[in-house]
C-alpha cells in the first residue's frame, strides 16, 4: 500500500481535512448532553406535576398558581417562572444549534457513500434523533400555543390564569376533549420516549463515563425505563380525559 500512496498526486487533498472548528465536536457533545439532561429532568418533573390532575381541579389549579407565585415576594408574580423559561429557552437554542452542527459535520465526514444496512431498535432511535427532535420542537410550539398562551390551536373558551387563580385544569380538559389534540399529545409522547431513550444513554458517553459492558446494559435499561415512565405518565392523561375518567 505504501508504494501506491506515494505515487503522484497526494490523496490527502481529497480526504477533506478541515480547519479546526471554533466549537469542537467534544464541546458540542457536552453542550448537547448537559442541556439534554436538563430537559430530561424537566420533562420528568413536568410529568409529575401533570399527574396532579388526578387529585382534582382545586389541587391542580393550586399547583399551577404555586408555580406562578414561586419565591414571592423575592420574585414578582410569574417572575421565577420567567427565569425558568429563559433558562430552558437558552438550553433549547444550545441543544438545537449543536444538533444541526453535529449532523452537518457528520454528513460531511461520512462522504458520498452513506452508511446502509443499519438494523435494530438501538440504531433506530440513534439515527432518528434529528427527526424526533424536529417533531418535538414543533410539538413544544404547539403545546405552548395550546395550554400556555391560549391562542391559535388552543381550545375554545380558554381561560387565562391570573394572580387570583388558575384555570389550568379546565383548559387541559377542554383541550384533551378534542380527539385530534389528544392524538397530537399521545404521538408526541411516543416520539419523546424514542428521543429520551437514546439521548439519556448517549449523554452518559458524552460525559465521558467509561463503563463496563455490564454497567452499559444497566444504563440502557435505566434510560429506557425513565423515558417509559415519562411517556406513560403523560399519555395516561389524554386517555383519561377521552374515556371520561376525569372531566
Amino acid at each position, binding site marked *: 500500500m505504501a508504494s501506491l500512496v506515494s505515487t503522484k498526486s497526494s490523496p490527502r487533498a481529497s*480526504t477533506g481535512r*478541515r480547519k479546526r472548528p471554533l466549537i469542537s465536536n467534544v464541546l458540542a457533545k457536552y453542550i448537547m448532553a448537559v442541556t439534554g439532561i436538563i430537559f430530561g429532568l424537566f420533562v420528568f418533573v413536568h410529568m409529575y406535576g401533570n399527574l396532579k390532575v388526578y387529585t382534582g381541579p382545586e389541587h391542580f389549579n393550586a399547583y399551577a398558581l404555586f408555580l406562578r407565585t414561586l419565591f414571592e415576594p423575592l420574585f414578582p408574580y410569574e417572575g421565577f417562572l420567567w427565569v425558568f423559561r429563559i433558562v430552558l429557552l437558552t438550553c433549547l437554542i444550545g441543544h438545537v444549534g449543536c444538533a444541526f452542527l453535529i449532523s452537518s459535520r457528520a454528513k460531511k465526514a461520512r*462522504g458520498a457513500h452513506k452508511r446502509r444496512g443499519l438494523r435494530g431498535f438501538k440504531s433506530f432511535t440513534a439515527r432518528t434523533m434529528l427527526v424526533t427532535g424536529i417533531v418535538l420542537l414543533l410539538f413544544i410550539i404547539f403545546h405552548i400555543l395550546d395550554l400556555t398562551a391560549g391562542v391559535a390551536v388552543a381550545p375554545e373558551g380558554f381561560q387565562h390564569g391570573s394572580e387570583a387563580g388558575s384555570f389550568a385544569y379546565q383548559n387541559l380538559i377542554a383541550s384533551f376533549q378534542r380527539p385530534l389534540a389528544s392524538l397530537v399529545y399521545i404521538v408526541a409522547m411516543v416520539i419523546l420516549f424514542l428521543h429520551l431513550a437514546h439521548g439519556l444513554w448517549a449523554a452518559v458517553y458524552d*460525559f465521558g463515563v467509561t463503563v463496563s459492558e455490564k454497567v452499559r446494559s444497566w444504563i440502557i435499561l435505566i434510560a429506557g425505563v425513565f423515558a417509559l415512565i415519562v411517556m406513560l405518565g403523560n399519555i395516561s392523561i389524554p386517555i383519561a380525559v377521552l374515556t371520561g375518567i376525569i372531566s
Partner: protein
Amino acid sequence: MRLTIEVWRQDNPEVEGHFETHLVEGAQEEMSLLELIDYLNDQLVSEGREPIAYDSDCREGICGTCGITVNDDAHGPVKNTPSCRQHLRSFKDGAVLRLEPFRSGAFPVIRDLVVDRSGMDRVLQAGGYISVDAGTAADADSMQIGHGRAEKALDFAACIGCGACISACPNGAANLFAGSLLNHLSTLPQGSTERSKRARAVIAELDESFGPCSVYGECAKVCPAGIPLSAIAAVNRERARALIRTGKDD
C-alpha cells in the same frame, strides 16, 4: 459454491468508481473473503483482465491491513472479525456478495478496494506515542503496576488500526480508534506524564479529519480487536480532563 460478486472497481482516486458483476463457480466454504478475491483474480487474469486490488498482509487477523465492506457490513457478516478471518460458510450457496472498499469521507479510494487511511496515521502522529529517554532497556518491573491496570491497558492496546470502526460509523467518526489509544496510554505510568497534551493533540486531529460521535455503537460491533464501546467515552473524558489541567502536560 456458486456466488455472484458485485465488486467496486475504480482505477484511481480521481475517477468515478462503479460496480462490476462476476459469477464465481467452484468457490469453497472454507475460503476466506480474501481467498475468494484471489480465486476471482485468477479468473480475471486468465481472461486477460486487470485483477482486483485489495489490501492484505498477515491473513490471521492481527495486522489490521485488510478490510473491505461486504453487503454493507465493515469486514463482513461475522461481528468483530477481520475480513481475512471471514469465511464463505457465512453465505448461502447462490448468494450475492457486494464487495466495496471501507467507506468514509476520510478514506478516499486509491484503487478498487484499497483506501487511503492516512487520517488514522495523523491521529497516531499527534499522540500515539510516549516520550521516553532512549538507552538501554529498563529493568523489568522497575515500574510496578497492578495486574488489573496492565490488563486494562492491554485491552485497549489491542486495536490493530484497521479502520473498520470509522467505516461502520454513519458519522465518519474515529472515536473508538482514538479512544482506545487514549485509554491505553493514559492507563500506564509511561504514558501518563503527557496525558493532557496527548488528549489535546489527538482530539484536535479528530476534529480536522473525522466526524463527530453520536453514539450509534456501530463501531464496537465490527471491531476485530473487540475494543469495547466505553473507548468512545474516553475521548470526551480525556478532553474534559485536559481542559481542567490547562497549561499542564500531564
